[in-house]
């Protein structure tokens, strides 16, 4: 299908904006920060950078209380390579606030997968397959869940996988044709280093994809398909870039040796015969997270997925081998637990990125068998693609929209009273290393948000602290919102023990006392 490249650019922009509309629903409904504890940590680094107007190297006390030992190479230092969080902070600076612009920037980052998959599929398999893949990815439920929970860098990093593979593919193809185009190799090197900065686990996905594609090409061509000199430059460039942040890079490389695998799965070779088997010990995600039907699409869509894979296996052109290498690398990454290593349920979240393009290719392959009907053939093809998209999206779209619309609404995220309290706290002159026990916390994540936005260490009263707290936060606000009179009465009763003290902070539902 011929399409004007400028019109195509506008179509892609509209696709991306549509995705942005849906993925920013949680912040459109309520502009306060949200997410699980991981989200709070990522937000905290960007927020502190903005409030200090300086990049962070040594962690401030309140972040250090939780993440001070996460950098195993150098403790009390920023544990993640800075680009992702500096990106969020840059977004905050551009939009003039540390809430909505930071979340918008995060949505832009997390949706990059649509652009990279669109681009790579477009270049290798055409406009229709690319557009269909992009549309389906917009409502990839597993991506959405991880995005709203807060594993943000991982979402962004997965977007680099297809682009790095594509860059290497372009170099290899140019080399085989006898006119090596090294710019692709240099771009690959830069993107690979950025991939490592953004999320180390995903970097290993990319690396494995590159290795497998190289093996496939080597087997087919039976000769070396790169120049040693070019490769040496690439390696030097890669190490030069990753040396920008030595403490963090050495930390992430060191920590990549840590096994996050479930020991129960080690040696379970039956795992190789399924794409993913739900683990015996749930890593803290709903059971539906492991379901193809709930996350990817109806079971009939597997037919097109298999067709897509079959086509690539039968044809085995270079571009087919590239996609197969990507698929095989993902398969290996999500079966590493059989060998007692890997963070396989996190790797699983890369599934839709390759499954949807394969389905789209499978569908187009099936449609290629349509009899020659003149100009009607094209219309029939387009009609079938639209029907496929509508059927698949009617299964995933409503759930996806539901997850986004309902994300941390109500008492699921900090409320207006808590937001006012944290705003006061961060600008107060209370000791920066003080600890606050949060009485009335509905969840660890909610207390974590008070902690990270208030710039003071808070912990819920349900956990045992190592040292007695300096301040007690009596927080009735959530119970008031859900009209839980019994819990309110219990907290008011507890507050009587502070009757001889003056609150250092007092609002309608939140009081803070020095112990």
């Amino acid at each position, binding site marked *: 299908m011929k399409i004007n490249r400028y019109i195509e650019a506008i179509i892609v922009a509209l696709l991306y904006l549509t995705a942005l509309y849906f993925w920013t629903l949680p912040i459109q409904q309520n502009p306060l920060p949200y997410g699980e504890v991981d989200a709070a940590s990522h937000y905290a680094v960007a927020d502190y950078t903005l409030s200090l107007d300086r990049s962070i190297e040594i962690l401030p006390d309140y972040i250090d209380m939780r993440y001070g030992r996460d950098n195993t190479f150098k403790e009390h230092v920023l544990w993640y390579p800075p680009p992702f969080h500096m990106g969020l902070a840059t977004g905050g600076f551009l939009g*003039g606030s540390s809430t909505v612009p930071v979340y918008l920037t995060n949505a832009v980052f997390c949706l990059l997968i649509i652009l990279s998959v669109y*681009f790579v599929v477009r270049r290798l398999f055409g406009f229709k397959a690319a557009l269909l893949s992009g549309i389906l990815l917009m409502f990839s439920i597993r991506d959405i869940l991880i995005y709203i929970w807060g594993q943000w860098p991982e979402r962004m990093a997965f977007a680099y996988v297809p682009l790095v593979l594509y860059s290497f593919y372009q170099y290899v193809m140019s080399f085989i044709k006898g006119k090596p185009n090294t710019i692709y190799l240099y771009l690959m090197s830069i993107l690979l280093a950025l991939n490592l900065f953004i999320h180390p686990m995903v970097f290993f996905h990319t690396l494995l994809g590159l290795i497998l594609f190289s093996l496939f090409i080597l087997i087919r061509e039976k000769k070396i398909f790169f120049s040693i000199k070019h490769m040496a430059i690439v390696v030097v460039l890669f190490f030069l870039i990753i040396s920008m942040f030595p403490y963090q890079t050495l930390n992430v490389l060191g920590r990549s040796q840590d096994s996050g695998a479930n020991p129960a799965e080690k040696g379970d070779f039956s795992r190789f015969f399924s794409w993913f088997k739900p683990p015996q010990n749930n890593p803290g995600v709903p059971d539906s997270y492991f379901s193809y039907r709930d996350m990817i699409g109806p079971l009939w869509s597997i037919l097109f997925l298999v067709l897509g894979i079959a086509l690539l296996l039968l044809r085995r052109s270079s571009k087919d081998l590239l996609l197969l290498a990507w698929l095989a690398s993902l398969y290996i990454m999500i079966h590493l637990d059989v060998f007692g290593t890997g963070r396989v349920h996190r790797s699983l979240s890369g599934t839709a990125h390759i499954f949807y393009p394969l389905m789209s290719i499978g569908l187009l392959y099936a449609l290629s068998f349509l009899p020659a009907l003149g100009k009607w053939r094209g219309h029939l093809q387009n009609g079938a693609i639209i029907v496929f998209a509508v059927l698949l999206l009617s299964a995933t779209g409503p759930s996806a929209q539901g997850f986004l619309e309902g994300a941390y609404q109500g008492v699921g995220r900090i409320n207006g009273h808590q937001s006012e309290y944290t705003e006061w706290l961060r600008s107060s002159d209370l000791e920066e290393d003080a600890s606050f026990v949060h009485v009335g916390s509905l969840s660890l994540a909610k207390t974590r948000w008070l902690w990270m936005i208030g710039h003071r260490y808070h912990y819920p009263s349900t956990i045992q602290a190592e040292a007695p707290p300096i301040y007690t936060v009596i927080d009735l606000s959530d119970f008031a919102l859900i009209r839980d009179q019994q819990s309110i009465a219990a907290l008011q009763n507890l507050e009587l023990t502070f009757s001889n003290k003056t609150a250092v902070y007092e609002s309608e539902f939140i009081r803070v006392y020095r112990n």
Partner: protein
Amino acid sequence: MKLALNEKTTIGIVAILFALFGLIFFGMSGSLTFLGWIIIIIPFYFILDTFNLSQGEKAIYSIFIGLALFPALTYWPGRLFSFRMVVVIVFAALSALAYFLRKK
């Protein structure tokens, strides 16, 4: 008046679409966030313009390199100077580099 689509008008249309989207759903703050990022990416696009790449490749590489490399470049200067000032200076330096490479 007939609008001729070319590289510059397409970038302009895309920028306007993003700015309007931001304005409608998030007000001026949203609009500035999106526009700001587009402006940050543009020097990367023009730097890549000096290489033998297709327009689509230049666009996609500039987005993926720009969104991660730009923040990376602000980190170390941001240890010493105002982060906000550093964002502006790094952008100015990249723009100057793009200008120099295109003039060469």
